[in-house]
């Protein structure tokens, strides 16, 4: 646990270093907010109030039931997601193993116990999928997901992600994920994940598979998954 905290502290200091003077401005704003009694402090304090406030913050982008949101960037569904996967990804954002400016800022402000509370909450949510994929590709996508593409040496997705695409442990749930998000991830896999070459992570498992899938196959699988409950 101590090691974890030390690591987290080092993310924070490295973050401040990397952002340079830009990070000073929000710090000033935060200091100003904290100096005014009854504003920032008006929210319920204590561990439970903090978790509730942070959940509200997550859901401002990820949707009221964490079903995801079609913003300028597709914002992924977190509902029903595997807690281990969420914790892994938040660490990856904070360590710059997975590049995403927005989530980097979010991740390095979260303590490990906060991440655990948030992840447990999301696991328990089960809203319907907001879909978004073309219906006419669902059949082809189901075939690829359940059976793979033997001619191209593409394994069945269901082998790791489960027959219902609900994931397991560090392997993410894909059921109900946003269509544009899935396409975006699968087509940019190596540009976004596993960015510290000297420290390969679990993202290396998907890398060759994401490469083997062509655009049409990616669209089909994404369409299928975007409607899975």
């Amino acid at each position, binding site marked *: 646990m101590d090691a974890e905290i030390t690591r987290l502290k080092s993310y924070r200091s490295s973050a401040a270093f990397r952002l340079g003077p830009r990070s000073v*401005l929000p710090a000033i704003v935060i200091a100003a907010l904290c100096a005014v009694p009854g504003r920032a402090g008006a929210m319920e304090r204590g561990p439970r109030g903090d978790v509730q406030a942070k959940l509200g913050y997550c859901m401002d982008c990820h949707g009221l039931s964490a079903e995801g949101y079609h913003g300028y960037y597709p914002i992924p569904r977190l509902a029903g997601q595997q807690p281990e996967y969420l914790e892994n990804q938040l660490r990856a954002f904070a360590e710059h193993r997975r590049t995403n*400016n927005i989530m980097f800022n*979010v991740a390095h402000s979260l303590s490990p116990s906060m991440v655990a509370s948030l992840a447990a909450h999301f696991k328990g949510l089960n809203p319907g999928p907001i879909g978004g994929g073309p219906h006419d590709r669902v059949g082809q996508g189901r075939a690829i997901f359940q059976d793979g593409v033997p001619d191209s040496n593409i394994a069945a997705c269901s082998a790791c992600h489960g027959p219902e695409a609900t994931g397991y442990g560090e392997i993410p749930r894909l059921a109900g994920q946003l269509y544009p998000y899935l396409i975006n991830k699968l087509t940019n896999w190596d540009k976004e994940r596993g960015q510290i070459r000297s420290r390969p992570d679990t993202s290396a498992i998907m890398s060759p598979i994401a490469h083997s899938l062509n655009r049409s196959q990616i669209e089909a699988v994404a369409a299928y998954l975007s409607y899975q409950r």
Partner: protein
Amino acid sequence: MRYGWLKIAILAAACAAALAPELRAEALAVRNCNWCHGGAKGYSPAPRLAGQRPLYIEKELLSFRWHTRDNPFSRQYMWGAAANLSPETARDLAMYFSAQPTKAASDGDPGLAAMGENIYQQGLPEENIVACVACHGPNAEGVGSIPRLSGLSFAYLRRRLEQWAEGYHAAAGPPMPSIASKLPPEVVAALASYLSFVK
């Protein structure tokens, strides 16, 4: 000869109907909308529409008709203005305004713009304030029914952000009522200043 005026009227109506929808929308916009929305310098309670997302304009015109956008100026001006708009006219107007070139309003406080940009791009995670860029885009251009924010005036942006916390626009649905009601006045002023300088 007795029906001469009638022939002229019929001819005029036929000409009007034959006008391309974009020309009709332009004529309508210039005649009606631009009194408040057009080229106003300095303070104006009416937002700029140039370059606005067409789906957003259509959605707002409907919300005026349904009285779900309910702040005082909407009640006073837009409820009446949108009351008799057909869906086709709303769409034509939306297409017309979305195609107009954008321009920065530049009426914010330049001293607050850097802070505003920082909050826009990164949010304030410690204060549970999300980064605007996730939905509104890197240049505040908006997408789909999510509005463009660049080109809007400081005065409009600040008032709009304050109004969410006052309970107006609640029918717009998540997430803006929740996000905006967390913003303290300093943050609102910084965001509105920054956005007023973005084209």
